[in-house]
């Protein structure tokens, strides 16, 4: 008897949790779906500026922080191809390393 009560209590709890998850999913989607694009674009713009700073020295623009940004170059390399294409350059602008 006691076991039954315990089980049904557990079942109710998991139903509630499932319901809460569902509510959370709908709320999150309702909040973010409409502006996902706008926010991602704004973020990409910021990243683009950062990318320019990291690679500025390589392109002949003096950068006082180049000692530090040099360390970041390998981390940013993955995104370099997309970046230069987005900036309107079909091919890599750098002579010494070509990604495409």
């Amino acid at each position: 008897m006691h076991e039954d009560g315990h089980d049904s209590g557990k079942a109710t709890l998991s139903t509630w949790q499932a319901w809460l998850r569902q509510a959370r999913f709908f709320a999150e989607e309702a909040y973010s779906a409409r502006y996902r694009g706008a926010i991602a674009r704004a973020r990409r713009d910021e990243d683009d500026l950062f990318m320019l700073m990291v690679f500025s020295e390589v392109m002949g623009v003096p950068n006082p922080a180049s000692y530090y940004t040099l360390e970041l170059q390998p981390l940013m390399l993955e995104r370099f191809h997309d970046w230069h294409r987005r900036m309107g350059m079909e091919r890599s602008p750098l002579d010494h390393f070509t990604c495409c």
Partner: protein
Amino acid sequence: MSAIVLLVIGLGGMALGYFVYSKLIAERIYRLDPRFKTPAHEFEDGVDFVPTNPFVLWGHHFTSVAGAAPIVGPAIAVIWGWLPAFLWVILGTIFFAGVHDAGAIWASVRNKARSVGALTGDVVGKRARSLFMVVIFLVLLMVNAVFAVVISRLMMDFSSAVVPVWGAILVALVIGQLIYRRMLSLPVVSILGVVALYGLIFMGPSVPIQMPESVGGMSGNAIWILILFGYAAIASLLPVWVLLQPRDYINGLQLFIGLLVLYGAIVLLNPTMVAPMVNDNVPEGTPSLIPLLFVTIACGAISGFHGLVASGTTSKQLDKETHARFVGYFGAVGEGALALAAILAATAGFASLGDWQAMYAGFGQGGVTAFVEGGAFIIHNGLGLPEATAATLLTVMAALFAGTTMDTGLRLQRYIFQEWGMIYGIGWMQKGAPATLLAVGTCLLLAFGAGGADGSGGMIIWPLFGTTNQLLAGLTLLVVTVMLVRLKRPMWYTLAPLCFLLVMTVAALLTQLRSFYNEGNYFLLFLDLVVLVAAILVALECAATLKQQRRTAARQQE
């Protein structure tokens, strides 16, 4: 007549439209295919193209298209009696709006989720595309000017709503931060936000703020309009997550709560329709019902603005093509339900016919004020909420809708100016702040130019806004019709609404042209002429394109 009967007939009619007519349209005309790979899957990028749950997508589509317009339009149009407005809203939703909205999604989905503007260029021609841009610009211009006037009037008439309306912005800012910094989970934040908003609404009547009738030689109305544009300009420049996103979210929640409260109160109170069925005794200066009814109610019956939302964002997130029926058509039904609530509030929410006639003493009067007062009467008597609180609740609902439309509209207008700056190589116009100033300037010119220095006459442009909106819908219907002709499918389901819209729009423009001329309002006369030229060009474009398409189709058959 009992309001419940009307409510049941109205909702029943729209439900029938959804279950029967939209099925026919979806299966026989658009032939929506569950196996078709939608752009959301084809170009999935997690940013713009995201396959989305149909209920979530419906919620977005509905809250994006539903604003203050389906409240203001019907609340003005009941001056001719409740029956004409009721019939146009119900039949318009079933045969016009649903077909148009679902059609816009379908057309876009079948063309790589391109926007209706771009589609007009591809499907109809370059000329039509330029025309489309002009019409969009005019719609945005008018919507911003008109909504500023609507809110300023509400602020003047219902001083109890000033604190909650501006407080809602603060609530949105806080919510935005809480969510952005992930301090609390979203359901908790939602509940807190709604509680805070309704707390402000309940507090509103005890802290009224009344703008003086005149400040430094300017009327209170005019001051509010200036403040509103100042706010909208700043809001449209802020990153979207700071204000726009949380504000839209809270508004969406509030839309559902407001609709439930209003419909619940109508069912509990069962008020009688106080206004006449057809008003034989319209105030002097009221234009004739045909054609003006069909442009006074645009949103709620058919609205071109929906096509922009449907093809701009909704089509990029459609998981399956068959969802276009639910998202598009049922979205239109939701908007029809909002318009129906506005009609019932503005006609049944009065104690006597005399009260109603006093409210509708002239064309363009009544409107959203009638909706608020009538709705407050119904909620007070049906649910027992104090009348001042109920009025504050509805004012906040209408003002917040109009407000979000304004900041989105101003943002879009800024983009258009920036694009023009790029096309014509004008450097300063490509920057955010000057382009926003230009957008605000043109809107202010319209708000004050239309109705004198106090800005209160800006409502005169409401029917003109309706006509422009209908023209936009006409262009979308043209795109859908041309696609249907090319696919050799029946075209009358979209061509008939298109022809009806064009005839009514041109007739309404001519009627208004005469009245602007008689009043000596040359500013609006000029604007009317611009829209008229656009309307005639749209009609010519329709005739030419369809003739050419049919000739091509006939040649192919030979």
